[in-house]
């Protein structure tokens, strides 16, 4: 079962949330971030080339222009491969764990997996981010020493940064699964 809704992130950009409901114990949420806009790309390229042309008129060395082109290309490739995240996915499988995948614009994927035994809870937390107060969803991990302590807080959807309404949807589904897992784990 699959459905898609559109939300907005904290800066106002459009996000698309895709929910896939594989079974009562397995759900997946996919957040797609806004694409790289042509306007910003053009603006950055023009700035770099203007600066390079200015330097060229000062120094009369044509190497500067080729260096500028080179830098622009490398910078764009590096940005697409290391910085720009296209899609963030959260996969919850009851009794196995939670997996978070970030896929970059160049196709690279980076995955983090957390075992269910380590997960204490999933909550929505507030944070002060520059001049705003934002909400974010995070996974609380158990402390192996202290039974009621928390060893780590893992934030989810860090680069998409959706708003509260999107987070509430994800939160509700995750809590259903966690409740289901706790019910089945306590019963023999």
């Amino acid at each position, binding site marked *: 079962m699959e459905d898609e809704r559109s939300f907005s992130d904290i800066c106002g950009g459009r996000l698309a949330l895709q929910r896939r409901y594989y*079974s009562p*114990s397995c759900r997946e949420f996919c957040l797609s971030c806004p694409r790289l806009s042509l306007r910003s790309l053009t603006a950055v390229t023009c700035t770099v080339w203007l600066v390079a042309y200015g330097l060229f008129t000062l120094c009369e060395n044509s190497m500067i222009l080729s260096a500028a082109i080179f830098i622009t290309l490398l910078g764009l490739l590096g940005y697409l491969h290391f910085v720009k995240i296209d899609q963030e996915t959260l996969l919850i*499988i*009851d*009794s*196995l*764990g939670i997996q978070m995948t970030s896929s970059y614009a160049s196709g690279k994927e980076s995955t983090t997996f957390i*075992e*269910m*035994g*380590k997960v204490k809870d999933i909550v929505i937390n507030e944070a002060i981010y520059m001049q705003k107060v934002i909400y974010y969803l995070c996974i609380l991990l158990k402390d*192996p*020493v202290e039974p009621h302590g928390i060893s780590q807080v893992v934030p989810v959807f860090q680069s998409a940064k959706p708003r509260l309404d999107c987070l509430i949807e994800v939160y509700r589904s995750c809590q259903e699964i966690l409740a289901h897992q706790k019910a*089945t784990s306590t*019963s*023999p």
Partner: protein
Amino acid sequence: MVLKAFFPTCCVSADSGLLVGRWVPEQSSAVVLAVLHFPFIPIQVKQLLAQVRQASQVGVAVLGTWCHCRQEPEESLGRFLESLGAVFPHEPWLRLCRERRGTFWSCEATRRQAPTAPGAPGEDQVMLIFYDQRQVLLSQLHLPTVLSDRQAGATTASTGGLAAVFDTVARSEVLFRSDRFDEGPVRLSHWQSEGVEASILAELAKRASGPICLLLASLLSLVSAVSACRVFKLWPLSFLGSKLSTCEQLRHRLEQLTLICSTRKAENPAQLMRKANTVASVLLDVALGLMLLSWLHGRSRIGHLADALVPVADHVAEELQHLLQWLMGAPAGLKMNRALDQVLGRFFLYHIHLWISYIHLMSPFVEHILWHVGLSACLGLTVALSLLSDIIALLTFHIYCFYVYGARLYCLKIHGLSSLWRLFRGKKWNVLRQRVDSCSYDLDQLFIGTLLFTILLFLLPTTALYYLVFTLLRLLVVAVQGLIHLLVDLINSLPLYSLGLRLCRPYRLADKPTALQPRGAHLPPPQLWLPPQALLGRPVPQAVLWGAHLPLEAERGQAGLRELLACLAPPHGHGQPSALPGWHQLSWRVSRALWTLLCAPEHGRPCYHTLGLEVIGTEHMWGWPARLAALRHWHCLPWDPPPTCCGHHGGEHSSPRCPEHCPMPTLRTQVQRVRPPQQPQVEGWSPWGLPSGSALAVGVEGPSQDEPPSPRHPPAPSAEQHPASGGLKQSLTPVPSGPGPSLPEPHGVYLRMFPGEVAL
């Protein structure tokens, strides 16, 4: 109930057969290790499984059936597979079936007995999880096979989840040894069924490495035995050896080679990594050295270098002469005292003249020396660079001499000035009390003193200028040498193997699961990090500045300390809480270890050494600069008086929430003087568990004190020991003042645990 079945990706295309693996009841998961194909004889299968079980201690069994229908599904096969469930009884029985072209899979798990619990559902859901056997085995995420009993007991309770699965796969290597070319009674499919993965070169290297390592190890032991003989410990050679960086580097290289060629296998992955990193860095070093060698010896560059060296030295000497002429005149418009100027200038000029003649004396031999130095590059680029640094030091020896002269002169002048300034004001330095006292001088004393003071004062600019110029020159030379040493250290310590592994095979560097990381109650034994040799003997503030981060491990010392600590049992009573929190125990042990270390017989006379020490509590603090560590855990020291500190959270000091409740203790008031044995100690303040009445003073100073404590100048250590605590007594140095009447002077041992200074 959801049943998890872990299925290897290599068996996805295997033919139909039986599923062989292990059932983990705690997580209701079945780990499939291999697929056993038809035809088979059940007796032989059971024998094989029994053998594997005995060899690997893993409970392998037949878990179910695997059906891969390449054509239309056959009815007879289905019934045959069902009847197998009777031959190999297992609860629950898995049935995995894959239709042709792999679009549909069906997984069923059946239990023969009715579920006993009333609430459990009758039908099990099966979750199929694919895992890559090869990567699981290579990434070593499983528990190490050799575990001490304590660790094994602690971890089996807390491992769960995937660690158990990985452990199963790793320990069943016996099952993976047979491949499909073996003529055994059964045919298995697993990740190595196409042939055991190995490389010819690696195998040959392993076979050859045995005797080679033996040979090299014997050679190296010979070399180290020669270098450890008594001749090298005599004064001139040992002094030279400690000063020249080449000897240091050669020693380091010898250690590295010994590590590589040792015939013992590495016990755990960390040691293996270390060995591999050492091999990689030695190889890189030697390769770079050989490149340098070939460059040097080609096209007679050595000759050119040798020819250029003497003129360069001459040029440097000439520049120095110009500099001195400038100083003797009116440098930067300053007016110098002519007479002193001329004296100093001529003195230094004479020195330079001597130096030039020395260089000219050496000039015929330079080429030979350089040629042999170039040969040393075979041992590695680092050795060549250290030799270069030593050569620079030797060539600029005159600059060093000038610096020393200038500094001594300046130092003398400053001392004289300060002393005469005190006389000018009518005061005097009281050596006994270590403070400035007023004093009445005679008139002639005052007269001469003031005269001398004026003379020294007006000669100050000249001396100061010479001092400044030569210090700057020396700094320049030191900076150049420092850069070379930095490069040498970089080549020595860069972990190339780990870096390469990270780039090419990142799964080999997986982090250990938290079950294996020591935490909490069993903290690691106290690690004392002693500073490098260069810091010993320095005055305390300087050591702190230099040694804020002290990375050198003292393994030998640690081993000795551990033995010592083992025989001394922890104390009880005397106003201490009976159950010390982990941090207290640790710092108590460390402080006792510290005391034994300081007073151990090998340290000889009780002179004022500085041992900067960083107490390593939890693993979070390893490698932290001492000041940060102090700020974080300062309040949790056992010297906190209990009433003001522990009341808030019942004696628990392990959490970092302390700063809100406990103010920074200022314990200086408690510990200025060592009380003689008649006066009892302050009650909550016997952290070392020594019986009260002991005169062992532990001075702990807060991290930010306004006035420097006057007993900072280390007095003679006098610590009296109560005869009851036997173990410590033997290791104490004899005390000049015995227990008796009250001591008027401040004696005591001032221990400053944070920020890592100890001044005896």
